[in-house]
């Protein structure tokens, strides 16, 4: 069965670029422009994986969304790949090994995301 991926990102061009790659890799792609809509879509559409932008309205909106997903019993197992911004302007240093304990996401991917890497990470998180 085709897996469904939700992209939560406010940059529509970026969403389209990722959609192209993921659809070509045989995934179904849905999107949401902000965190709140993203949470609603998770409940309604039950995606298999979420690609979550770290910075939307606020510098760390992505983190809050991730925590909300993890703290909701119904969706706490949902794999999350966090898309981090260029450079270090969030003030967070992303280091998976170090941050695993307290960052409720499965993977980090730095923008701009290389298409091959995107597919590879998505497959890995889906256990394919």
């Amino acid at each position, binding site marked *: 069965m085709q897996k469904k991926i939700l992209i939560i990102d406010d940059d529509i061009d970026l969403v*389209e670029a990722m959609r192209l790659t993921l659809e070509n890799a045989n995934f179904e792609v849905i999107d949401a422009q902000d965190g709140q809509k993203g949470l609603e879509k998770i409940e309604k559409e039950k995606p298999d994986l979420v690609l979550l932008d770290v910075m939307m309205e606020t510098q760390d909106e992505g983190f809050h969304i991730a925590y909300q997903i993890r703290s909701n019993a119904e969706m706490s197992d949902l794999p999350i790949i966090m898309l981090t911004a260029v450079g*270090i*302007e969030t003030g967070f240093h992303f280091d998976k090994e170090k941050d695993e304990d307290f960052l409720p996401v499965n993977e980090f991917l730095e923008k*701009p995301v*290389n298409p091959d890497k995107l597919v590879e990470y998505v497959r890995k998180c889906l256990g394919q």
Partner: protein
Amino acid sequence: MHKFSIEHFPFLNLSILLSRVSWSITLRWLAVSGYFLATIVAKYAFNLQLPYNKIWLLLGILALINVIYLLISKIFKKFSFLAEIVFLQFHIIIDLIFLTAIIHYSGGVENPVYLFFVFHVILSSIIFHGRTPIVIATIVVLLFSSLLYVEYKGILPHYSIFFSNLHSNELFIYLTLVVFTITVYVTMYICISFMYIYREVKVQIDQQNQQLIEADKQKSQFFRFTSHELKSPVVAIQSSIDGVLKNFSDQLDSRAKDLLQRASSRSSQMLDIIRELLELSKIRSGAQTSVKKINLNHLIQETIDQHRIIAEEKNLKLNINLSQKDIIVYGSAESFKDLFQNLFNNAIRYNKNNGQINVSTENIGDYVKLVVKDTGIGIAEKAIPKIFDEFFRSENAKKEVKIGTGLGLSIVKQIVENYGGKITVQSELGKGTLFTVVLPKQKVLDTEQEGGIA
């Protein structure tokens, strides 16, 4: 009494005043012991007849007062600025009274030691502002005139040194007082005029400094703002291009594909610049990252291992000579990594094939020395002063490696300077380059800026 306010004393801050107070205490010890020695010489070498016991008593009391000053300044370490000023004024006035009494017992007008009054006039003209120096000068003149008057009138006895009866010679007293008064006021006038000019200049310099700091801050903010604004569009551009390249590769004609690949590599170059600009403005803004204990040798070895593959592509020989003893520094691991990585990367990128890179660290007392030496293209002499400038890339560097941001060494310099260290470079065109970084083991904390005159 005029109002005290810091602006009236642009040359002074609390720490300078505190050092003035301790200086004044030291001077007083010297003066007391010097005068005591002088009386010993006067008494035993020259057999001068003076009331030594009284002089010694006065010196003793003055020494005691000095001990009290010392205790006060030790106990109340944190005086306010105003309190320090008043404390110093009090010192000077007490000193003047004691000096007058000592002159009285040491021969009055016969003893040129009254010239010592001029020291106090100079001192107060330098330290104080407004009318205080005039008040002090007037007190000096009044004290000395009164002394001569009471001795002249016989209200107080005159202790003669030379038995010349000068103290009752009206003309001599007038002459002495006129010359003394002129000396005191002119000295004061010269000192305060001089200080006035200095204070004006200091205020100007301070203002200009403030403007420069402000301008630099604005520049950094502009950097940061621009980088942020540039970032999202470039990310979108690159993602779109890469998306097309990946998904429509088989539909693209080879020249179209080539152009897209070029576009992709250029936009990734632009992202590198943005990334480094953000890094630089972050270091600039002095944003404190967490300070950790860092083993510098481990960090360097780790970084070298990560870059070994690129070095092997050029068949470079790495001579790594790290100090036997661990080098521990305190700071942000990211910064130290950036620092070394930038230098090491340059040593690889601008090296010749089959070249060499020497990396060494050394403990030198309280300092750490890091040397990175390559056998690369070198830097032209006239380019050396510019290599730490933002965006600067030397002609030969551009020729050797086309793509580069010109920000790496600015980042390095900023990190080194933030840490209170120093970086120097020696280079010969075509032969190689040597970077030396000296860092204090303990980060130098910003101390209060000392300004002003001695």
